[in-house]
Every structure is written in C-alpha cells, then in structure tokens.
C-alpha cells in the first residue's frame, strides 16, 4: 500500500523557493520539484500565487528564486528544512516574510 502523498513520511523531491517583491523577500516556502505546469496543463499553485502577486504589485517587481533542492526526502524533513530557512531569515533580518506571517511564528519572538 503506497503512502498518501500528504503524509509526512511520503518521499518526494522538493525545492525551497523564495518569492521576492520590490527586491525584498516576500515569502519562503517548499514545493514539489519545480514543475512549470501540472500534468493537466494548468499552472502550479505557486505559479498562480505569483500571478496574483503580479496583479497586485506589478509583474516586473516579482521574482521567484530557488534557495535549495532536496532530492528524495520525506515531507517531514522538507518541512524541517523550510522552517530552518524561515528561522534564519528572522534571525538575519528581524522580520518574518510578509507572505509567511499567517503561518510561521519564530522561536523567541518577543511581542
């Protein structure tokens, strides 16, 4: 029996990506190894997100970069690495990227 794709023990190829808006890191996230489109031909969720940001901020002000490639790792390990990037970003800049603020709370953040 195969492991459900959303299970933390599922193995996959992941990237840690960064969305930059107006030259500043807007979001750090993880995604399945960078597909340009889904097999259906539709844009990936990430691409749709970028298009939405492009409508809001102007497409010329949006960039997507790859910070890391993780081959054949569990979802759980990919999440851990993603969190490491977010914690390090917070330690370096004193800020949580705007696009991560709803879901990420850094350790030792004093209110």
């Amino acid at each position, binding site marked *: 029996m195969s492991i459900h794709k959303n299970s933390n023990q599922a193995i996959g190829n992941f990237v840690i990506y960064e969305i930059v808006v107006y030259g500043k890191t807007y979001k750090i996230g993880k995604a399945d190894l960078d597909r340009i489109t889904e097999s259906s031909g539709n844009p990936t969720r990430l691409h749709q997100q970028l*298009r939405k940001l492009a409508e809001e901020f102007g*497409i010329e002000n949006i960039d997507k970069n790859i910070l*890391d490639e993780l081959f054949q790792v569990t979802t759980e390990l990919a999440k851990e690495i993603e969190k490491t990037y977010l914690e390090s970003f917070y330690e370096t800049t004193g800020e949580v990227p705007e696009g991560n603020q709803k879901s990420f709370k850094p350790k030792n953040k004093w209110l």
Partner: protein
Amino acid sequence: MVMKVGIMGYFTSVGFRFDLNPKVKKKIMDLIDTNILTPFPLPKIKATVLEILLNTDGISTENKVVRISKTDKGKYLSFMFYLPYPKIVKNEIVDLEIFIQVFFDALKEALSLYAIPEDVLEQTKQEVLCEIVGKEEYLFEISSEQLAWRSVAKKLRQESQIKV
C-alpha cells in the same frame, strides 16, 4: 482588449538568477507593448497577457524558448525564456547590453509564428538598448539586509546538503 506583455523572473536552478532592476523589465515591457503588441496584435490569440518567464540553467550558452501555454484560449500566452547565464553574467553582474540582445533573440523565436516584421523587432531592441545601457537608473541595487540574507541562505544550502 489589447494584449500586454509581462516579464517576471521565474528561476528554477539553485544559485542562478538574473539580478535586474525592475525598471529594466518595465522599460522593455512598455516598448514591446507600444511598438509590437499594439500595432501588430497576435492573430487568433485570445490571451490578453503575453507572459514571459525569465530563467536559466546556469550552464548553457544558447537560448532556449519553451511555450508553456497548452492552448491559445486562456488569459495568458506564456513562454519560458532560458537565457545563457555564462554570456550574460560576469562577476555576478548582469551585462545589460548582452541581456537585452539575447532577450530579443528569444522574443523573436517566441513570436515567430505571428508574422511580426523583423525590422520592428530590431528597431524595438535598438530603442531598448539606447534607453537602458549606460544609464545609472537601470543598474541593479540590493539592500544590505538582502545581501546578508543571500549569504546566510548560501550557508544553509551547504548545511542542508549534508543533512540530506
């Protein structure tokens, strides 16, 4: 509705990107809209956005243009431009003149099915070169904070490779 072009960085190889001032992309977009898409609307295309995704594999010395859109019916007509990193970037700085040259070579290939006169493309390229090259306002700038982050991210990448 007149089609407009949009250019976005959509880099898929670790550590490889083109650091461009957004004003460069905006200037190229404006001149493509004015000189090409408005007077020469693409025939039989319903899309209102010509979406150009800038990318590179970091190694190749030639352009590669990939059409992303599966049909002609959606809102976006999308192309991925894989541009040659070794030609464009020297000492981590984008050579804007070379970037513009190879970008327009890729654009010519992307629009090859749509009967845009070659002299119009060439003229637009020359106008872009004249507007951008050698002008300080189009140089790439990065904050000290983002520079520090890039250095940290590079270290993290090295550490994660050991973990993985």
